[in-house]
């Protein structure tokens, strides 16, 4: 733990939200990301200080719309949601109680709120009555590389007849039964994080974790109206990826052990929170841990522009995307591949086949162009 604290510097660890945890699964092979995330480093601030601010932002219109839709679904004790659940699960749910787990008065700590969630979920799991119960604002917990992350999902856990379902509310539209595939995929990855966290909680309480269904209820606006519609999403695959990734992160200690003792990503903020760490020094520190850049990082990781610049400077073929890298049989750099293609470079062991192909491609390209 002390080691992670030193890596991060004198600031509190950045909590992982479900989006961040889900994004871990996007590029599991990246040591830089694994180390920085495990240490709870603020990657956004790091990237900005390095001169490569992350290209992400959310429009105020999207935020307003998302909040309005969520409010609509949850209005009057989740009345709309209940209608959907009846349809979707095909259950005659006569009545459902609504419990707001976030509502415990005052301004309690995450720890306290989690304890409250724990208590109520435990009671729910023991209770065998047939009436459904909706639990809004549960505060879940997940261990990530030895750190406890609290997750505050926009979701509702729904219990009926001893089974729990995670309900995820998203504001992208489903038009004639179709939605943008990458948005659905992202929602499934996030929902998987909550399923895992709720299962972990049940297991801790001594209940059967399988009582949390791997089918999550995705609630989205239907067609062009604001009327919510529900779909069941099977997140078993996402769960498997997530578990594998989390177990890898648990082993992040091995990577950290191989790093120089004095290494830190501390931004050394002054009293106003403005970073004072000399940029070249920070750059060196970040470069100490190897990254595995891929163009997909551009939509998931705060450090993407920094890593892309680094990959470009090193002439890495990773810059061009996996398809190109596959076509090049894994040759690591642009100059190496071009050298093999024009014959100025002798292929190393195991490179004979790709070298032959590249030379041929070079000849045919010259002939045809």
């Amino acid at each position, binding site marked *: 733990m002390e080691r992670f604290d030193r890596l991060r510097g004198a600031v509190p660890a950045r909590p992982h939200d479900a989006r961040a945890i889900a994004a871990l699964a996007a590029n599991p092979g990246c040591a830089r990301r694994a180390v920085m995330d495990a240490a709870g480093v603020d990657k956004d601030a790091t990237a900005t200080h390095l001169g490569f601010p992350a290209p992400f932002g959310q429009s105020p219109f999207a935020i307003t*719309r998302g909040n309005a839709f969520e409010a609509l679904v949850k209005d009057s004790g989740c009345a709309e949601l209940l209608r959907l659940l009846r349809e979707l699960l095909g259950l005659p749910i006569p009545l459902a109680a609504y419990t707001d787990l976030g509502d415990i008065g005052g301004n309690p700590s995450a720890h306290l709120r989690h304890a409250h969630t724990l208590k109520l979920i435990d009671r729910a799991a023991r209770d065998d009555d047939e009436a459904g119960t909706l639990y809004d604002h549960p505060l879940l917990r997940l261990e990530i590389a030895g750190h406890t992350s609290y997750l505050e999902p926009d979701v509702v856990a729904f219990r009926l007849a001893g089974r729990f379902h995670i309900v995820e509310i998203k504001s992208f539209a489903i038009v004639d039964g179709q939605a943008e595939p990458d948005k659905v995929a992202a929602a499934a990855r996030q929902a998987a994080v909550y399923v895992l966290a709720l299962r972990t909680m049940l297991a801790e309480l001594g209940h059967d974790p399988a009582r949390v269904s791997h089918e999550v209820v995705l609630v989205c606006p239907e067609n062009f109206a604001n009327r919510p519609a529900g779909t069941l999403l099977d997140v078993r695959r996402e769960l498997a990826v997530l578990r594998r990734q989390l177990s890898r992160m648990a082993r992040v200690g091995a990577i950290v052990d191989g790093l120089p003792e004095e290494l830190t990503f501390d931004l050394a903020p002054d009293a106003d929170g403005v970073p004072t760490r000399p940029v070249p020094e920070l750059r060196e520190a970040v470069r100490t841990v190897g990254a595995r850049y891929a163009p997909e990082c551009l939509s998931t990781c705060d450090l993407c522009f920094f890593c892309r610049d680094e990959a470009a400077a090193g002439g890495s073929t990773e810059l061009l995307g996996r398809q190109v890298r596959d076509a090049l049989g894994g040759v690591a750099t*642009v100059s190496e591949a071009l050298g093999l293609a024009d014959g100025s470079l002798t292929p190393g062991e195991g490179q004979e086949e790709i070298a032959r192909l590249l030379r041929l*491609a070079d000849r045919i*390209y010259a002939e045809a162009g």
Partner: protein
Amino acid sequence: MSTLAALARLRAVRTGTAQRLATVRHCHLSERPMVFIPLRLAGEAAAPLAAMVGTDPGHPHLLVVPQPRDRDLRFAFAAELAEIVLPYVEGFLKETETVERRGAEPYERCADAPQLLVPGRSALAFTLLLGRSTRFRRAEGPHAVHPSVPILGRWLTFFAQRARHPGSALLLAATEALSLHWATGQSALEDANLASLIGWIDPPPGTTGADAAREAEDPLVWPPAGPATDPGFDAEVLAPAIRAYEEAPGERAAARVAEAVRTQLDPTWRLMWRAVDLLRGLPEGRGASARWETDRGSFTAFAEQLAEGGPPQPKHDGAVAAASRLARMERAQASYDAQRAYDDPLVMAAYRLTGEAFTGTVVASDPANAEGEGRGRKLRPLLTVRTGDPVRLATGTKLGTPDRRGQQAEVVEVDGELVTLKIVKGMGRGKVATPGAVPEVGDQVCYAALSDEYQPPASLPAPEETPWTHGGPPPEYVPSTEDDQEEWS
């Protein structure tokens, strides 16, 4: 991705400019295309915010919805868009030509067709949504809209659906059309940014493509090509302008929103016409013209359907319609691939690399070789070609050649660098081959196992005879009040 395309990307990295992937243009480009750049309000499924549209690079039309959440303003936008798009589209219906067919009645086909150009794939998807949200509306009843709105919806749906048809050029996404002809030194994901793609292909003087592409990623210099807007612009410029309109609706407030979105659309408008110029710089391939003819046919048929009062395109295809669409698209894809290869040595190069095609020099030719006796005697000239390409073709494989499109050959034997072929189709009925019909010793030739032959359409039952295994006949379209009322919020 082929090794060839990968190599082209590597070369682009080294030289700092995009590399050619084609020697000819593989999509038809109209003399008077209509550029259409839609913007959507962030967070909404299909709430149009604005559009820049027109056929004259110097005079774009700017359409704006000053309060995108207002239903009436949206339909006003759709009607305004219809006023620009429909006259353009319908203008092509005036001039037709008669197409003669063997064994069937001749029919009329429009002499030319409209062509819509959008910036990228997401604009294409948005066009489809815009079509979906307008085509079921009706001009009468309690939720009446302007009569042009549902017509616009059906045309937009037609264009967007047709764009999925391999090789069609009625609606083109600029990024896709450019990527078909140039390889950049960045990933395919980054190529989806029109400004950065054009930066690679045609960097400003004194700049490398790589630098131009990086600069193009700054949303302040090059706003996103839509339909999504830059979140920073939304927060700092658009949101206050829309709020001002809400508080005091009027021309001045509307003009403020319009000026705001204009700053986001103008750069993309200029990029779109640069994309047109870049593509025009390439000579049109033979297949592209042929495919445009098919496009004109499809356009004519849809216009007729519309004129006869056919129902709007259904939300879901019925079983028969879906199967026939799929079969049509598969055939179109195969013939599109083959045509491009036969039109363009650079496209053919990828097949040579995988051994499905080869080029070489004729080392032996027997144009008089024949098979059969008497009346059944047929000319079957034999050729032996020496090639340096890695040929991977089995005996009996049917081959075509770009130089003699009507002919078909068959592999007789592959022996190291020597390939022996027999020409089995397209030799005519003469006793001897016409001069030039058979390559001579010393000629450079190219053969490929790609077929662009006519394939008969799949035989499927009529929709009303859909078997119960496939859900039975699809229900007939009845305009429903639900569709008129459907919110568009």
